[in-house]
């Protein structure tokens, strides 16, 4: 840290670069829309403010809904809630529908212009986001802890949002886009959840126990009764695991893969009962009676589908009546249909997608799906917002995601107070783990984020226990600021200098693929330095990220050619150099990057064109990876099915119904080191074979002094 001045933490909400989405800037976030004491900038449109200030507490007007959720939370619903297709349907089944429909909320679409832009892509989820914001602000009115955390009761008491989907469906005047969107949000999630991949079957109930325990961890403040209930549910889950047989499951809220038996559903029911009891003990005010019927629904549900033993069971064992319950009605109908379909194709091997069954399956994250997770209640609002923005893609790109995460953590640390009788380093670590798990649910971590988290955790764990809290927090904030400044910001600058030096003064034709922030910057800087060159921007479906690159380069006055990946073999002849970004560089020199990059590099290698990878060392990883199967990220398969602006291309319509068809949308691919001419880092240009040397140097410096610098 020696060489760097103490600098204030930079607030970067969404890097200005990646993704065409204009990120909300800090000022707009702060424009007086916050409720006093609200820890993070949350955006509350005027409509909602009015709503909240009217004081129509949801707990008063809407009776059933909060209770349904109450049972959820107090029962310790684990992560599975994320996939639960909405407690609404459970409520319906249990006969609450009329009450639920009485909830009158202003439909998000009618709200005033929002500071968060990006209407087409993230409308629904952002609408939801605002909803959260409004709720949170209400929460902060009602009972907000100074730490910016919301206690369980607070949120559970005033959460009308599980109704969101239903509200949307019930509003006939609601824009079609919304309705469709919300439907879409529901469906894929269910399908993925309810019909686990055959290959994943062995990993059954453990996830439940796991999840249950996680939920337990997150609820330190539970009453004794609640805790007992939780234990009971865990025991039940364990029993379920024995009968159902199973291995591990994704942590936090990783999609529950796994078929579970009726026993699992039973466990869910038991948990529900436990939850009820716990609630009776803990929070007597809102009547808790609803838990039981809901649990019953879960059981009935589980039994109804014992043959396919879908996710309803898993969700139930996930210990929540409300999580299991929603598998009712239309959703469950669709799910059941899909389940049947899933059963047939067992004769056919779907090898290409089965290979990827171990990865976190894609599921659309929405506010409502998150709110069904009881763990969400414990999540700091900055993290919530961050997670949603990861999920809807408005923060993308390795650097941007890492920066946004570090900033959110900074906020978390600032708002942190050590609970009585706890140790800061331990408690904060625990909390951080919880947040990280939440973020993973929203989108798998990138390598850079993983490195940053590891770094931060190391620092937290090495804080001496006798350090005063204020000092420790100061220290950590400074640590984060240093990390951002040194490893990301100034690293970027250095890297750009090195990279642009490799652009000839005259006559270069540079190929780049998709979008990389540093590559864009290097090219823009090179143009600014008076070099004359042409850029071939190569792009590919479905993300079409290259267009943002194109826009930026054109704005800088650089002549460009725009081609798609299919034109690679043609265009490579006129190219002199290839500049590529990377999501990560691994220690065997393998480069992990946006899917399609490896093909570009391979083509360039075959034509003897130098391939330069621009990657800061904070994205270096010690892992070794030989293929793009072991670690990867799955994108929305729906993105492959439709071509925007071309409705006549509809051959894949209803693909999910097809028994012998799966779509695979891989996000990254792996480029072997032999295709890489050099890796441009902030320390200069190194051959890919030297990546482990840099890693080693870092590890040594990490061990000896407080930081690598």
């Amino acid at each position, binding site marked *: 840290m020696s060489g760097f001045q103490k600098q204030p933490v930079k607030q970067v909400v969404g890097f200005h670069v990646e993704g065409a989405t204009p990120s909300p800037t800090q000022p707009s976030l702060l424009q007086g829309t916050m409720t006093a004491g609200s820890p993070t900038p949350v955006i509350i449109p005027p409509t909602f403010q009015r709503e909240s200030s009217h004081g129509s507490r949801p707990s008063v007007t809407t009776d059933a809904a909060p209770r349904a959720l109450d049972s959820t939370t107090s029962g310790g619903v684990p992560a599975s809630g994320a996939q639960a297709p909405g407690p609404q349907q459970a409520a319906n089944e249990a006969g609450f529908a009329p009450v639920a429909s009485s909830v009158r909320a202003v439909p998000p679409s009618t709200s005033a212009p929002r500071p968060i832009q990006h209407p087409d892509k993230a409308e629904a989820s952002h609408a939801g986001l605002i909803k959260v914001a409004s709720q949170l602000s209400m929460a902060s009115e009602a009972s907000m802890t100074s730490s910016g955390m919301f206690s369980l009761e607070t949120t559970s008491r005033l959460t009308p949002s599980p109704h969101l989907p239903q509200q949307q469906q019930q509003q006939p005047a609601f824009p079609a886009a919304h309705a469709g969107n919300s439907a879409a949000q529901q469906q894929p999630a269910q399908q993925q959840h309810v019909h686990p991949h055959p290959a994943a079957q062995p990993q059954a109930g453990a996830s439940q126990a796991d999840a249950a325990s996680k939920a337990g961890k997150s609820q330190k403040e539970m009453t004794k009764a609640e805790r007992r209930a939780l234990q009971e549910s865990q025991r039940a889950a364990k029993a379920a695991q024995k009968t159902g047989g199973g291995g591990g499951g994704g942590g936090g809220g990783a999609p529950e893969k796994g078929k579970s038996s009726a026993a699992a559903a039973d466990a869910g029911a038991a948990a529900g009962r436990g939850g009820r009891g716990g609630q009776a003990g803990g929070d007597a005010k809102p009547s808790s009676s609803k838990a039981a019927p809901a649990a019953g629904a879960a059981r009935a549900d589980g039994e109804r589908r014992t043959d396919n033993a879908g996710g309803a069971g898993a969700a139930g064992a996930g210990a929540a009546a409300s999580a299991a319950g929603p598998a009712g009605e239309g959703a469950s109908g669709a799910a059941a249909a899909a389940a049947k379909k899933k059963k047939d194709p067992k004769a056919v091997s779907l090898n290409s997608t089965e290979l990827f069954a171990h990865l976190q399956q894609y599921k659309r994250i929405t506010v409502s799906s998150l709110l069904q997770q009881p763990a969400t209640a414990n999540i700091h609002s900055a993290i919530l917002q961050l997670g949603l923005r990861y999920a809807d893609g408005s923060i993308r790109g390795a650097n941007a995601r890492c920066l946004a995460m570090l900033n959110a953590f900074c906020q978390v640390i600032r708002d942190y107070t050590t609970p009585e009788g706890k140790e800061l380093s331990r408690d904060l670590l625990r909390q951080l783990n919880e947040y990280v798990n939440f973020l993973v649910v929203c989108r798998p971590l990138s390598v850079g984020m993983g490195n940053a988290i590891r770094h931060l955790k190391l620092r937290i764990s090495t804080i001496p226990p006798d350090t005063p809290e204020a000092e420790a927090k100061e220290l950590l904030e400074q640590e984060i600021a240093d990390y951002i400044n040194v490893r990301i910001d100034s690293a970027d600058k250095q890297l750009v200098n090195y990279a642009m030096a*490799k652009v*000839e003064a005259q006559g270069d034709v540079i190929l780049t693929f998709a979008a990389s922030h540093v590559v864009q910057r290097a090219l823009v800087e090179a143009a600014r330095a008076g070099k004359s060159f042409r850029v071939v921007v190569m792009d590919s479906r479905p993300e079409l990220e290259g267009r943002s690159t194109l826009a930026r380069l054109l704005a800088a006055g650089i002549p460009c050619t725009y081609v798609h990946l299919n034109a690679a073999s043609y265009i490579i002849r006129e190219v002199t*150099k290839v500049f590529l970004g990377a999501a990560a560089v691994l220690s065997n020199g393998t480069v992990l990057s946006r899917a399609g990059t490896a093909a570009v590099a391979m083509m360039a290698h075959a034509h003897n064109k*130098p391939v*330069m990878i621009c990657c800061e060392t904070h994205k270096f990883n010690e892992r070794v990876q030989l293929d793009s199967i072991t670690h990867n990220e799955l994108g929305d398969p729906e993105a492959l099915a439709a071509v925007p602006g071309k409705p006549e291309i509809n051959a894949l319509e209803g693909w999910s119904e097809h028994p012998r068809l799966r779509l695979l949308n891989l996000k990254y691919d792996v480029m072997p080191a032999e295709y890489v*001419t*050099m890796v441009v880092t902030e*320390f*200069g*240009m*190194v*051959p890919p*074979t*030297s990546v482990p*040397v*840099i890693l080693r*140097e870092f590890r040594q410096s990490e061990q000896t002094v407080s930081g690598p610098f």
Partner: protein
Amino acid sequence: MQRRPSQKALVVTEGFGSNTQGTLNDIAVREFHDALSRDEDVAFAVAAIMALTAVIKRSSAATLMGVSKELEDAAQALQRVNPTNISLKAGCELFLRYTTRTSALELKDIETAKARLIERGLHFAETSTRARQTIAELGSRFLRSNCTVLTHGYSRVVLRLLQQAFSSGLQFSVIVTEGRPDGTGITMAKKLDAENIPVTLVLDSCVAYIMDRVDMVLSGADAVVENGGIINKLGTYGIALAAQAASKPFYVAAESYKFARLYPLGQADLPEERKPLDVGPMLPSRTNVINPSRDYTPPQCISLLVTDLGVLTPAAVSDELIQLYL
């Protein structure tokens, strides 16, 4: 390794700066040329190191910052003497890095610190001078009896290596290319012949023809770049390709002061150095002539590098450089 004819002029311009830095630069340049003329076996880089050590000795700067500033200036002045010589540049950079890098800076007393720097400089110069012998000892083990070695142009370290192997009683023969346009291969052949080493001279264009009879290729280097590739006399790359095609090992003998912070992407990416070419009066007037004097051999073509740091794979060069510069 030709000396620049205009050294006198350079010395004059540097000398009449009349400030101390000018004098120091003057001293550096003069020392540099002295070192070169004292012994023709002294490499540019080693001479530069000696010159820079002399600068520290004469330095009147009161702070270490001042000393390093003076050193940098002097290094610049030295590089102006021969701007296209990569090993000179590399030597200067390495020296600056080596002397000013660490512990000397912690000493409070400027005089002690200077003494320390001088000590280091001398040590560096000494190891650099000894480097060739180290390489000869390490590299001669690669030769087997009755083998045939192909070499390109004149390289003092290769010559020393071959001498060492021959004096240890090994029987082998050497094939030397002619080394057009400056005929350095002929110089090499003469020196080898003087040592009684059997030597054959071939045309530069004969390399692929002769490759079948060769057991190994041994090359010197002007500079070793960051990825373990080398920059050397024109034709080296062609020989390396021929050797690769014929599956013959291609060894490089190079002192570690030739490790340069350069990363060429290809032949066009080299610092330019032009040498006059005598193509004769027969050339049609509209014909373009491209006459580079050196080329870049990528690491894929190189089997091993014999350096005074040990026998390295090309990838290990980058490791050494990272450890030095990171």
